[in-house]
């Protein structure tokens, strides 16, 4: 066939390569018209098609006894007993948040909520993982993003119960905003997008379509007059109030037998929602475009199909139920319009005033994008400078680290999030994982989100393994058993061989750690092309994890509980400065290796903490992470207001003292126990061959290591409290 390939400019505007265009023509057996090409452009984008990452994601373990829904649906779903399941997923909104921090973050939260709602679940919690360039330069972004997350979540009445914030040079110009949502669903009400049948009605509910988010340089702009280009807003403004109504209305609608499925409208708007529903049902769909409610006059079919206006849901409804569905939405003062139907012919057909304006096989649109296999190449290892002599005064170092932007208190942030609404929050933000009770059961869910770009820069495989292990440690510290993982892969441009190599290694790292810990990956998100003038961001896989506490009353707090309790280190008394916050912040060492991780040891340590918590032997538990043992111990003290008196601490073997205190050796916890519990804890540790070191006794108002350091708690607390305010 003689193909008239559109101009380079035209192709660039729909973000398709010449080869992809040829593939479209091959698969269609003809050339696409402009509307069709636009739809291909969005659905074959990396964001929607995962054309680069899909082959890698297959490496994740994703099955398991409890998994009711693995990757591929709007959210992963895991059995938690009592006929209930937990649905959860993480999503990035990096680029929108870079342009407009408040709205970018807010609509990111809105988007992830709709994913969970689409499973038939009721969202019960939000978490946010945030990364920025250093303060004070990133202050505006930090403020905007935090206000946006809070603005949306607070208005919705969904508590934001956890998250993380890091500041690093690598995110200057390209901040990361990842939002995670956790929902609960009755197993018999679980919905899947792919259950539509030919003849079912498609009902579009919620906000009218505006010209929002249609990729700024779009193909159809050629049809419009020159000025209209600027008239297309690049930023979407969220309406959490409408989303709240949409949530309630969808929940009510899902109680109707005739509602088969709900699909959210996210990236690529209606095009993606309809194509996904139809593709998963192995069916087709027909849309009467004139019926789609619009916010603006004069919108073209192209604009309507590609609009990314927020707060919209598509319902797949058995014929005959349309009115009852309409009545539900009417009760919530929302528009709900039948815009078409599922068909049996496998085509996505768009009809405008009775005339077909597009008709393409759904399969080609949804799954036809040729996979990409970029070149992968390990970067040259950078030389590791040796660390300078340790500072004399470990106490002063501790104060500085605790007051540093990466380790200080996050209260100034999470107090701007409603983290209590829902009357479920048993362990609020501020500790390791948040714990929320599950109403009507004795159980609770623990949840966390974690990543470490610095470890991943040093070695993406080990860094990713550590991210999984650290998330699991946060869950385990509360006494909960990790259930499953959702992951957000934030990377640079995969066409750079080093970046693709990072992506591969990180995926392998997540896979290995998940396999070792028996954790399926049930959902996730990929965000590539995170670049600024300085180049790619650090490879940043972010791990969201949910755990189950069979008996909520067995939850373990992170703070010390009483004077006189024994304070112990679970795991190796080892030290290494590799990849540590100390090396980076105090010594300016940014290269080298990440900490060593032994997955077998990790398992044993987590086992010990879990068994001990089940037997009620632990008064408190907190994992050792960035800043090492001393920072973790100081946190346990600050949270409780109780000091600790320890004997001098030396590591096994020849280790620098600063590495003992601040080194980030993996697989460790600080726990406390009563004198009754101690012997049992010790024998449990012996049985599992896990090191257990008695550090000292809780008490007093200082953090003390005999002859090594002694710092008043008040000094630590002040530094820690004020860290985010300081422009350091």
């Amino acid at each position: 066939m003689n193909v008239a390939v559109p101009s380079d400019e035209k192709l660039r505007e729909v973000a398709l390569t010449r080869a992809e265009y040829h593939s479209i023509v091959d698969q269609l057996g003809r050339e696409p018209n402009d509307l069709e090409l636009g739809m291909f452009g969005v659905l074959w984008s990396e964001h929607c098609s995962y054309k680069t990452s899909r082959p890698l994601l297959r490496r994740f373990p994703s099955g398991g006894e409890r998994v009711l829904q693995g990757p591929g649906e709007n959210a992963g779903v895991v059995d938690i007993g009592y006929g209930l399941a937990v649905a959860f997923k993480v999503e990035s909104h990096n680029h929108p948040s870079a342009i407009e921090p408040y709205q970018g973050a807010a609509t990111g939260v809105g988007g992830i909520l709709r994913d969970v709602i689409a499973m038939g679940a009721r969202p019960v919690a939000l978490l946010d993982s945030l990364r920025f360039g250093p303060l004070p330069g990133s202050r505006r972004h930090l403020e905007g993003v935090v206000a946006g997350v809070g603005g949306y979540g607070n208005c919705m009445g969904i508590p934001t119960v956890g998250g993380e914030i890091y500041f690093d040079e690598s995110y200057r110009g390209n901040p990361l905003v990842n939002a995670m949502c956790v929902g609960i669903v009755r197993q018999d009400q679980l919905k899947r997008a792919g259950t539509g049948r030919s003849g079912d009605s498609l009902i579009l509910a919620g906000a009218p379509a505006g010209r929002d988010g249609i990729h700024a340089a779009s193909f159809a702009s050629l049809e419009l007059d020159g000025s209209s280009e600027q008239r297309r807003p690049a930023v979407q403004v969220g309406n959490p109030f409408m989303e709240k109504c949409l949530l309630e209305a969808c929940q009510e609608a899902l109680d109707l037998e005739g509602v088969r499925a709900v699909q959210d409208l996210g990236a690529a708007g209606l095009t993606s929602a309809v194509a996904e529903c139809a593709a998963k049902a192995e069916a087709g769909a027909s849309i009467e475009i004139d019926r789609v409610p619009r916010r603006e006059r004069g919108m073209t079919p192209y604009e309507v199909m590609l609009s990314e206006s927020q707060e919209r849901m598509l319902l797949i409804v058995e014929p005959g139920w349309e009115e009852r569905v309409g009545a539900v939405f009417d009760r919530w003062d929302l528009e709900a319009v039948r815009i078409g139907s599922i068909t049996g012919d496998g085509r996505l057909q768009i009809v405008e005033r009775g005339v077909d304006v597009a008709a393409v096989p759904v399969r080609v649109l949804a799954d036809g994008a040729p996979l990409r296999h970029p070149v992968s190449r390990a970067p040259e290892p950078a030389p590791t400078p040796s660390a300078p002599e340790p500072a004399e005064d470990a106490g002063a170092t501790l104060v500085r680290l605790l007051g540093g932007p990466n380790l200080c208190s996050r209260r100034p942030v999470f107090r701007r999030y409603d983290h209590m609404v829902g009357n479920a929050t048993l362990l609020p933000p501020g500790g390791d994982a948040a714990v929320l009770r599950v109403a009507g059961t004795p159980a609770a869910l623990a949840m966390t989100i974690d990543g470490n770009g610095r470890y991943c820069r040093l070695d993406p495989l080990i860094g990713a393994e550590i991210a999984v292990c650290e998330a699991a440690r946060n869950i385990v510290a509360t006494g909960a058993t990790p259930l499953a993982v959702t992951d957000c892969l934030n990377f640079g441009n995969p066409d750079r061989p080093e970046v693709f190599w990072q992506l591969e290694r990180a995926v392998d790292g997540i896979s290995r750690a998940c396999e070792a810990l028996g954790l399926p990956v049930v959902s996730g998100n990929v965000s590539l092309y995170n670049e600024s003038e300085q180049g790619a961001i650090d490879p940043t896989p972010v791990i969201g994890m949910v755990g189950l506490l069979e008996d909520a009353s067995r939850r373990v707090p992170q703070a010390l509980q009483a004077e006189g309790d024994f304070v112990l280190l679970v795991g190796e008394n080892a030290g290494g400065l590799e990849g540590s916050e100390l090396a980076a912040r105090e010594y300016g060492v940014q290269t080298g290796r990440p900490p060593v991780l032994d997955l077998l040891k990790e398992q044993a340590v987590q086992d010990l903490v879990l068994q001990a918590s089940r037997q009620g032997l632990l008064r408190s538990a907190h994992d050792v992470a960035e800043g090492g043992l001393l920072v973790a111990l100081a946190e346990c003290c600050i949270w409780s207001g109780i000091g600790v008196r320890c004997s001098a601490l030396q590591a096994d073997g020849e280790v620098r003292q600063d590495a003992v205190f601040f080194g980030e050796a993996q697989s460790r916890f600080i726990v406390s126990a009563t004198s009754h519990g101690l012997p049992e804890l010790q024998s449990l540790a012996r049985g599992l061959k896990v090191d257990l070191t008695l550090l000292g006794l809780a008490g007093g108002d200082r953090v003390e290591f005999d002859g090594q350091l002694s710092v008043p708690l008040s000094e630590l607390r002040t530094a820690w409290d004020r860290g985010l305010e300081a422009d350091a």
Partner: protein
Amino acid sequence: MRFGVVVFPGTWSDRDCGWVVEHVLGEELRYLWHKDRDLAGVDCVILPGGFSYGDYLRAGAIARFSPVMESVREFADGGGLVWGICNGFQILCEAGLLPGALVRNAGSEFRCQWSHLVCDDAGSAFSNRLSRGQVIRVPISHGEGNYQADPATLSRIEQGGQVVFRYCDETGRLADGANPNGSAHHIAGIRNERGNVLGMMPHPERCAEPELGGTDGRLLFESALHAARERVPA
């Protein structure tokens, strides 16, 4: 006793209030839809927290015109117990059932945290299980909880003993740092002259069970129970 919890489209503390009524107190519960006028024979109406209509323009501005509010006003005029919590307080002020208004927090930030309240009037329907000067611990969660009124109104409610709760430190002092939103006179909750209508920003429904960090909120619910019993002898 039968509690009615009003549900506006953007309300979200309805479930939390309902939970306390049904599962903590074991009392009867009715949800009251904002479009309905029927109060279902309840003994106490709770206007719970949330963002009734997105709280665009001003918190509570649009909600006050809803049909259910007409009935709530009549109910209050007849001496019925009406309890506005957080957004409910804002709505009661907008509706003129309570004096003053709630504006943006000093510092303009949303605040979710535990706060201490000192009870300044143990005579209201919602504080009769407390004693004057008693300090309780209750969470707040709002962006517009800064109570403001003109000087004449302020002195009128002060003189009338209508201030029921004030923000304080844990010893009950009205310390500067213990006013999380900048409210005039540290006001956290006020009642009408008759004492059957209370509006407060803090969330007692979030602290009625020990595992949620405190049980002081329960005292307020029990006060309402007591008041309802007094009003309608069984």
